C-alpha cells in the first residue's frame, strides 16, 4: 500500500495566521482526502482533493478557510487560514490506491493555535 508523508508533523501557531500542510505519497493514487481530528474526537472528512481541479468540500467546510491544492497524483496541500484556537486539531492526509478499497493515512499534523 501507499506510504504517505506529511509535514509539518506538529506546529504551534498564532491566532490569525495561516499554515500549509504538505502531503506526499510514494506512488500515484486516484483519490486523496483530508481529515480533521479535534481533541478527544473522531475523524471528520474535510474535503476530497481532486487532481487538477477544485477540491470537493464536505458540509461545514469552505474553500476560503481550508484551501486545498493537488497539482499531481502524488502531492496535495491543505492550508488552514486565519487560524483560531478552535482550529487546534490533528490534520490527516489519506489516499486511496487505484483499484483498492482501503484508505492509507499519513501520521498527521498536530496543530496548536494560541
Amino acid at each position, binding site marked *: 500500500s501507499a506510504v504517505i508523508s506529511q509535514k509539518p508533523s506538529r506546529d504551534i501557531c498564532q491566532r490569525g495566521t495561516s499554515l500549509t500542510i504538505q502531503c506526499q505519497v510514494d506512488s500515484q493514487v486516484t483519490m486523496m482526502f483530508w481529515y480533521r481530528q479535534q481533541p478527544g*474526537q*473522531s475523524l471528520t472528512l474535510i474535503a476530497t482533493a481532486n487532481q487538477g481541479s477544485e477540491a470537493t468540500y464536505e458540509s461545514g467546510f469552505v474553500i476560503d478557510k481550508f484551501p486545498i491544492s493537488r497539482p499531481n497524483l502524488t502531492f496535495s496541500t491543505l492550508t488552514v487560514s486565519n487560524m483560531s484556537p478552535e482550529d487546534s486539531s490533528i490534520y490527516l492526509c*489519506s489516499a486511496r490506491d487505484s483499484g483498492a*478499497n482501503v*484508505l492509507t*493515512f*499519513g*501520521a*498527521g499534523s498536530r496543530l496548536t493555535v494560541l
Partner: protein
Amino acid sequence: AQSVTQLDSQVPVFEEAPVELRCNYSSSVSVYLFWYVQYPNQGLQLLLKYLSGSTLVESINGFEAEFNKSQTSFHLRKPSVHISDTAEYFCAVSTNAGGTSYGKLTFGQGTILTVHP
C-alpha cells in the same frame, strides 16, 4: 449517507482477558467495513477490513471481526489482550456504490482500550 456508532467510549480490561469492541453501522447501500487503530501519539493504521467473502476477518496480531449484515454490526474481538494493545480503535464504513460518497470513510467516535497489568 452512512453512519457508525461505537457503543463504548472506553473499555478497561486486564491483560490476557478477552475483549469485544462494539460497532454498529447504518447505510442504505452495500458497504465496506474497517477497523483502524491509533496508538498513543501515532497515526492511524488499518487493523482489518471486510470487503467481501468470508464474514469473519482476522488481523496479524490476533484481532478478529465479524460482519453481521442482519444486525448491521462489525464487532472487534480478541481472546487474550496484551499491554501493547492499549490504543484507540476506530470503526469505519465506506460505500462500495458509486456517486459522491465513493471512496470516503465515515468513522465512529472511537473506543479507547486500556489494558491493565
